[in-house]
């Protein structure tokens, strides 16, 4: 029987990973990821997991170790955050390029400087082009489910790419809330043991990480094609999960009261729940708004977004990061997806960077700016939400 208990978001992830039975975990501490790996270490220490936990000297080594273990044909997991993810980044490119189905948790936190431990999406955005599949979650239950789904997705022979489950640091990892933990037996039925397509094996010696010259474009493209195939699989696996466990959090995207919405707010991660509450409140004031959750950031669900926002008058995209010199990366992607199509205009809003709280006041500001853009027909390139002008001097 599944059990529901009030646990920390980090524990929800650790429990999901445990249920997935990885053979190797390698990780390095970094806040706010730290609790996840501490819990997993304890599970191993208590013999609750048949797993080799490799304590490493840096995130760079953590990613490298799971690169090695995954290539040896063993289900492998790591987690990191912020600077740590960036330190891993060189390995993550290699991991995706070598098609190793590692699952990692990207606990979202901003990147120095200035140094801080506050959450936003700056870190995983920097890994956007690695080839990793990136799935964002809105709450602990979804984090739990998505890790289990992630292994199934990563290890599918049509995909074979690392999957990063992105969750907002602190806001999710350090929150306590009721989480339903599934039966091990049922998880085993949902997620069979890892069957590698290739592996390092002295009985069948293969060369991994070969040097390519002329073949590079095709190998990069094959990663892209795998991500294209992943679009269907993400939805399919989410539905399979629903059939098995009763929970569905969206496939590539999820929508909330978008059908007749004039303003659709597009966002990722932990802000989604707050936005849903805001939508209910605003709807009572006769403001027709809806929320579109981008669950899969890579592969990017351009078509799905287009069909969900078609009828709206304005698409307000909330970016918890800034591509300096360009704008919000999510807004940029949404604009690209809607370009050359019959689609509403897009207002890119930078909101919630560096842990700035996504309060109701702030969401109201987004809606007001969207309404103004609709009435005036003038759409600024970027709107900055809850900006504290005193720091700009």
């Amino acid at each position, binding site marked *: 029987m599944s059990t*529901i*208990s*009030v646990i*920390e978001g980090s524990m929800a992830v650790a429990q999901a990973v445990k249920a997935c039975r990885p053979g190797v975990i390698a990780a390095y501490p970094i*806040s706010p990821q730290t609790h996840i790996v501490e819990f997993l270490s304890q599970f191993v220490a208590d013999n609750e997991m048949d797993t080799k936990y490799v304590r490493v000297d840096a995130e760079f080594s953590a990613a490298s170790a799971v690169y090695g273990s995954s290539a040896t044909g063993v289900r492998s997991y790591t987690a990191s955050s912020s600077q740590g993810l960036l330190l891993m980044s060189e390995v993550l490119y290699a991991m995706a390029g070598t098609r190793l189905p590692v699952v990692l948790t990207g606990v979202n936190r901003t990147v120095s400087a200035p140094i*801080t*431990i*506050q*959450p936003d999406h700056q870190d995983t955005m920097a890994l956007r082009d690695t080839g990793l599949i990136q799935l964002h979650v809105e*709450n602990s239950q979804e984090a739990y489910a998505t890790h289990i789904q992630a292994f199934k997705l990563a290890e599918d022979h049509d995909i074979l790419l690392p999957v990063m489950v992105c969750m907002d640091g*602190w*806001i*999710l990892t*350090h*929150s*306590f*809330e*009721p989480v339903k933990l599934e039966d091990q037996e049922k998880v085993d039925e949902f997620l069979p043991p890892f069957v590698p397509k290739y592996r390092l094996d002295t009985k069948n010696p293969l060369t991994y990480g070969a040097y390519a010259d002329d073949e590079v474009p095709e190998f990069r493209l094959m990663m892209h094609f795998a991500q294209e195939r992943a679009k269907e699989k993400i939805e399919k696996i989410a539905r399979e999960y629903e059939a098995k466990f009763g929970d569905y959090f969206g496939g590539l995207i999820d929508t909330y009261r978008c059908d007749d919405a004039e303003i659709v707010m597009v966002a990722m991660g*932990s*802000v*989604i*729940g*707050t936005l*849903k*509450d805001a939508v209910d409140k605003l709807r009572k004031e006769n403001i027709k708004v809806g929320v579109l959750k981008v669950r899969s950031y890579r592969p990017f669900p351009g078509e799905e977004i287009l069909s969900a926002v078609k009828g709206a008058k304005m698409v307000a995209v909330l970016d918890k990061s800034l591509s300096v010199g360009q704008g919000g990366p999510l807004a940029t992607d949404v604009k690209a997806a809607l370009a050359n199509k019959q689609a509403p205009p897009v207002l890119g809003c930078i909101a919630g960077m560096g*842990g700035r*709280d*996504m*309060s*109701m006041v702030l969401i109201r500001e987004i809606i007001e700016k969207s309404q103004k853009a609709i009435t005036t027909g003038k759409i600024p390139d970027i709107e900055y939400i809850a900006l504290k002008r005193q720091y700009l001097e």
Partner: protein
Amino acid sequence: MKEIRIHGRGGQGSVVTAELFAIAAHQSGRYSQAFPYLGGGGERRGAPVQAFTRIDDKPIRIRSKIYEPDYVIVSDTTLIKLVDVTAGVKPGGMVIVNTEKDPMALGLPKELDIRTINATQIAVEKIGRPIMNTALMGAFAAFTGEFDIESIKAAISQKFSGAIVDKNVAAAVAAYEQVKSR
């Protein structure tokens, strides 16, 4: 939805208190959410900290900070000088302070419902150390009626193990009964 804000100091167990409230709410069949002040990595033992709990009859989606709490808990009176502990408290909201002093002697806004409990003394008596958070929880249950004492006891039993369970339960019950008997 009911929202609780806890003011404490690093190392006093404010986050654990918030977590225990969330567990107690779950034990009593409600939804809950507890979280520390975002970040906190720069805060060390002794620094003023905050933790939050939300309780509702339906799943909780909102994740912003708590700006207008229904209840505030203050784990020691020295915090009143350092932090605006009553900021944003809803009209008629309750502030529970760990002190031996009279509520009116704390210099807090008169329009608020101020309650006091000497949780530290109860903790010293029942636990042997001045770890006051479970006593505060017992008092909170009695003052607010948000929890029955059984769900507080269940939360403590779920979170801890060994001898400290009984001691903490005893502290919570003692505080609960002290308030009830007033």
